[in-house]
């Protein structure tokens, strides 16, 4: 198929960006979206032009690098997948596709379609861990049985890949879904309870400091999240936060 691409080009964080039109031809429906971008870039290099910069690495939906806003939707039109898992069979000959970076004040553009997501790093550093040293004599892994249900729920929350689609999908650019996924994972496990109070307070504080917006429960994040992270996690974090605030006061 033949397609028109409207792509955000921006030289660096200081430059002013703009949309630029490109044409690609002979695109196979079996290609992944990023392979289509490879074809575009190969053509640009051949013409001596600068290829379009975009983040990607694993190309199998797990590293969280890829991050394209496609026709206004984070990770594009399909559900439950990342940009790198999107296939061209979702488009048809003659389509125009608009490709932009994540848009959020806390995610400044570095170049073209690449944004800076280090705000997420700082949220994790504020409390996204259990304080245990590596000694070789921590207690046996089976010493504390954990119900299958709690373990499975913790696992569901833990599958967040830190891509940032939730922020990009939200009109307030809120990072609640991302933050609550980590808070929930640890809140659900006995190992995580010990530091639960400080963890939720510190992570929420950092999230606010980074300039992410407030959550108004639109649910857009859950819809676009490639890993199906549930809004339940936000509710759980709110309960944890309330309990922590009461405990601290």
């Amino acid at each position, binding site marked *: 198929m033949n397609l028109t691409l409207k792509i955000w080009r921006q030289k660096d964080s200081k430059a002013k960006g703009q949309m630029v039109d490109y044409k690609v031809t002979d695109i*196979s429906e079996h290609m992944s979206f990023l392979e289509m971008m490879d074809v575009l870039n190969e053509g640009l290099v051949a013409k001596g032009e600068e*290829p379009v910069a975009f983040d990607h690495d694993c190309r199998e939906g797990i590293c969280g690098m890829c991050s394209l806003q496609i026709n206004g939707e984070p990770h594009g039109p399909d559900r439950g997948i990342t940009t790198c898992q999107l296939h061209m069979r979702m488009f048809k000959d003659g389509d125009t596709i608009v490709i932009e970076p994540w848009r959020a004040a806390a995610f400044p553009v*570095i170049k073209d379609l690449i944004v*800076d997501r280090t705000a997420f*790093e700082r949220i994790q550093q504020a409390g996204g*861990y259990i304080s245990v040293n590596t000694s070789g004599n921590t207690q046996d892994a089976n010493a504390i049985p954990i119900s299958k249900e709690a*373990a*499975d729920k913790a696992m569901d929350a833990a599958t967040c890949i830190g891509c940032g689609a939730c922020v990009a999908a939200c009109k307030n650019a809120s990072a609640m879904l991302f933050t609550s996924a980590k808070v929930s994972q640890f809140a659900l496990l006995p190992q995580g309870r010990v530091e639960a109070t400080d963890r939720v307070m510190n992570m929420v504080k950092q999230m606010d400091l980074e300039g992410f917006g407030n959550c108004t429960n639109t649910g857009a994040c859950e819809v676009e999240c490639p890993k199906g992270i549930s809004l339940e996690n936000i509710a759980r974090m709110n309960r944890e936060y309330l309990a922590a605030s009461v405990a601290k006061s």
Partner: protein
Amino acid sequence: MAILDSKVPKGPIKDKWTTYKDKINLVNPANKRHIDVIVVGTGLAGGSAAATLAELGYNVKAFAYQDSPRRAHSIAAQGGINAAKNYMGDGDSNYRLFYDTVKGGDYRSREANVYRLAEVSANIIDQCVAQGVPFARDYGGLLDNRSFGGVLVSRTFYAKGQTGQQLLLGAYSAMNRQIARGKIDMYNRHEMLDVVKVDGKARGIIARNLVTGEIERHSAHAVVIATGGYGNVYFLSTNAMGSNATAAWKIHKKGAFFANPCFTQIHPTCIPRTGDYQSKLTLMSESLRNDGRIWVPAKLEDAKALQEGRLKPTQIAEEDRDYYLERRYPAFGNLVPRDVASRAAKERCDAGYGVNATGEAVYLDFAAAIERYGKEQAKIHNISNPSKQKIYDLGKAIVEAKYGNLFQMYEKIVDENPYETPMMIYPATHYTMGGVWVDYNLMTTVPGLYCIGEANFSDHGANRLGASALMQGLADGYFVLPYTIGDYLSHEIRTGKIPTDSPEFDEAEKAVKDRIEFFITNKGSHSVDYYHKKLGKIMWEKCGMSRNEKGLKEAIAEIKALREEFWKEVKVPGGSDELNPELEKAGRVADFLELGELFAMDALNRNESCGGHFREESVELDGEQKGEAKRNDAEYAYVAAWEYKGEPSDSVLHKEQLEFKDIELKQRSYK
């Protein structure tokens, strides 16, 4: 040979590591504050090492080319991690894990290292659970296990099909705790482009800030390389797009020997390729072989009809299917080791029995598993006379719970529903057993320079068993390196900060800058990918699943010629002082073009078939094992460690003779 001293401690194998730890020198906590360590790479190996070294009190600088440690390639590991916990009570032990790993590696690994790996494996699980890693559990709340290829016990711990992700996020959280304390300085979007040696010791690195293009100098008392494997030398592999050999190759050029480069793992269960545009191949976890049955049609005409799209696999009757692994290897069946499974698939496809348009695919079928689980569930839930549909639904739910994300991944790529029609799979490059040579301390042949994780050669011999790479990465980083590096650093407490304004740093930085300048100014005619794809094709065809003298000699000549052309004709758009992905790729492919030649030389030198390295000249000619790989212990029971001397073809071979005192050397049989 003195030059290759493995430094394996004396004494019985069971006591080596304990005695060693009791005797090494320690650094007191006050002194650790004055010692800097650089860790390049923050996958399972580097991430766990960085966190643990920082916990101990060293000042750690860690580097990764992605925008977060959480995105290292380890994140993609699916199936699981081994540990000799014997929670299943099926007879597992440290010795058995050690034995399986040495045998699985076809007797080309160092016994003492492997035994230590087995010994610390149980600690890994304890540590990860303490960190909050949500491993799968059974209804009693205890940890669940599954079995993997090449072994007869269930010792694999898992977190759905995302075990690597959860383990890496565990190491990442441990790192975050140390970053918050100021004990780790994390340099994301940085690429190491050279190591700096002062007075023969590793004292720092040259790195490029990938956002600004700035070339930076970083010094330390020791440098740890944890940059993963070199599978992308084949262009197409299951590795992440950015996975590269640059750090390992750069230290090789500065004196670190490179061991067994030809030992590569071609994984049997990957999604087959479809077209020339393809950028990577996707693994379907080996755990699927627990429940999936592998087959091709028994009749050539059926295969032909499948290839032409005239027939569907579900239309082929049971008796017209050839479950070739079950047929050839009744004892292990679908759970033979990876190298054996891959060659068997190639053998069937080469004979014309492939099942897709390219003729390079076999089936992995879950119909029998769905039925078996369905019947079991019906019993558990007391459903008498369940309908066929009911059995299917119940069975499907179990398969979905076990492998749901893999099935979804498959469906998104292939656009077929694997619950209803068998998956198509074919072997693809996946893992590299070869790597930087290290001694028992995980130190390279350069003092103060360490190498851990997939980047080193140490534990898997000629073939790695499933779920053992995650185990090795975390063993190295959490439990081995923190001890062994302490012994070295105990001699550094009076050294003081390493200055970065020395001539050694000047020289290394200049070489890095010159090379970048060359790429940016060279007005060539072809893109970097053009060369990478060409290299990949040579590697796959001549250094792939089966190798012979003629092909390897051709490969050596062709790679050399391609490299020469690359240095004349490569074209890199953009500048050096900005984010420039083409420039990053150019440097990596330049290194692959050298490594590829050494790879082929190593494969040519090793005229035996062992593990993932299959030489057509070396097969069993008769008996029960007829046609199977033939190892040659009399001549090749050694580690081939190559010393760099200018050009790959000038490399000098050093041999570390392998001694097997605790395991009898036997021909592998999975029959």
